[in-house]
């Protein structure tokens, strides 16, 4: 009896220790980001840093406004969601409700493969295929507009398209499994009441699976917000107002591109950019928690 209790206790301590490792990492990162990110906020001023739009960190009178950079991240992510979520949701509906078993499996495998492709490959294809196409559009659209600065196709729109494709697999696979989890009795009941198949899907099944779908959307948001590599390669990287054909820089690419040689306040501001990104991601995760909780409440 005593031996059993000992094993029990050891196992518990071991598991507790393992949990501590993970919590430790989160705490260390959080503390580090706040410690490194806060000084620049004080030095430059919260308003000047977050809401001014001129980014000239190495000028003789430096200006550290990251307003356009924050805006580019927000606009890029939001637009990618507006485009990607409907496509992802309808694809999920097709896989779980309409496609036969074989077709469904093939489509699902293809989407899983899409999720496994590294972001640098998305960037590479975006750079070699998407950018030249965008350049052609740019030349046609801005032919007589002398005030437009030509970017050679590396612009916001390219970044949005790449992000949209990148969030699709997340949205589709999470939505598909939550649609599949909806009980068949619900479908049968809806059909028995005389609803068509489409009515059943959109009025009964999707509302029942909404918390799962929401989870997919939030996970997609996280991926779009945190993506750096692919965007560095397609978005041009100059700090501009995020219009479709402007070269832009997001929070992630800002850190990636300038961390190498940055010094002094410039370097500290880059940590603040990281902090802003970190806070955004925390908000997204909070939303995820709420979405999951809503799902659990529904089941109860």
């Amino acid at each position, binding site marked *: 009896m005593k031996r059993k209790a000992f094993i029990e206790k050891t196992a518990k301590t071991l598991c*507790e220790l393992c949990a*501590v490792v993970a*919590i*430790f990492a989160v*705490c*260390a990162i*959080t*503390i*580090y980001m706040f*410690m490194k990110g806060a000084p620049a906020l004080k030095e430059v001023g919260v308003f000047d840093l977050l809401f001014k739009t001129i*980014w*000239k*960190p*190495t*000028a*003789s009178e430096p200006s550290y406004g990251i307003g356009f950079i924050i805006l580019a991240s927000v606009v890029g992510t939001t637009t990618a969601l507006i485009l990607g979520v409907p496509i992802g949701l309808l694809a999920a509906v097709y896989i779980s409700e309409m496609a036969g078993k074989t077709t469904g499996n093939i489509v699902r495998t293809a989407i899983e493969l899409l999720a496994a492709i590294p972001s640098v490959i998305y960037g590479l294809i975006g750079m*070699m295929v998407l*950018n*030249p196409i965008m*350049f052609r559009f740019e*030349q046609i659209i801005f032919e007589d507009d*002398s005030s437009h*600065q*030509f*970017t*050679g*196709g*590396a612009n916001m729109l390219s970044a949005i398209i790449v992000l949209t494709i990148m969030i699709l697999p997340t949205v589709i696979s999470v939505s598909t499994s939550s649609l599949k989890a909806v009980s068949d009795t619900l479908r049968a009941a809806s059909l028995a009441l005389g609803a068509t198949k489409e009515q059943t899907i959109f009025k009964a099944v999707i509302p029942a699976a909404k918390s799962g779908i929401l989870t997919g959307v939030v996970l997609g948001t996280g991926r779009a917000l945190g993506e750096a590599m692919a965007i*560095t390669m397609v978005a*041009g*990287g*100059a*700090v501009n107002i995020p219009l479709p054909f402007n*070269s832009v*820089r997001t929070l992630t690419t800002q850190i*990636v*591109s*300038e961390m*190498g*040689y*940055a*010094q002094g306040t*410039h370097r500290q501001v880059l940590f603040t950019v990281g902090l802003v990104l970190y806070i955004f991601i925390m908000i997204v995760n909070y939303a995820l928690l709420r979405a999951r909780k809503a799902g659990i409440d529904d089941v109860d």
Partner: protein
Amino acid sequence: MKRRIIAIMAAVSIMAFGLVGCGSESPQSADAAEQGKNVESVELNGTIKLAGSTSMEKLCEAMAESFMERNLGVTVTVEYTGSGAGLESLAAGSVDIGNASRGLKDEEKASGAVENIVAIDGIAVITNKSCSIKDVTSKDLAKIYSGEITDWAELGGKEQPIIVIGREAGSGTRDAFEELLEVKDGCVYAQELDSTGAVLAKVATTPGAIGYVSLDVVDDTVSGLKIDGVEPTEKEILAGKYMLQRPFVMATKGEISGQNELVQAWFNYINSDDGKEVIKQVGLIISQ
């Protein structure tokens, strides 16, 4: 249970704080390790202090690393404070060598600083192969980068928008280019890329693109522009005709021969074959 969770969180936070705090102390332990090695070396012992130009970071890091490999007892410390600040530190006597990525001013020379040019930094302006223009004046080049000239037709080429490509803020190449062209912080870039290779690749694949890179990486995927009729070659740079070049100076207070033996060894190393190899490796030109 709740109290337990709070206790664990608190313990973990304290640990995390400890770890983050430790981060800044590592250089000292590295110093200690360096001193441990002193015992083996009999010839040279001590520290050489350098301060100055941020653009010279790559050169100084590479040179210091390979110098310390051969002289285990010597520690080379380099601070990147900017050319002017480096020379001030030299004048104040707080460093042995002041780094400057420009020629010394008269008043700096008057305060006793001696200009020792160790290398020359050259920048080539490149265009996409489809561009028919092969020669620009430095004035026009400045206008292209400040956004006044936006189409190749304005320079007599075929009608095609100019895609202005450059490096990110903080890059030494960008710093040098903007300074030499006198367009510091007035450039309007269409694309800001974070490496020499990326600039080269983008210019090679984008019709109408123009960019700048270190002289040594230019290859035949792009065409190099003549500036004011001068080809971007090592020969023209050494002759002082090509404008996009600047000296890397390691200034000393008084002549090198009057310095302590550590500093003399440092300059001897730079002038040796090994030192020249380092200069070439970081993409610079050896001054004659």
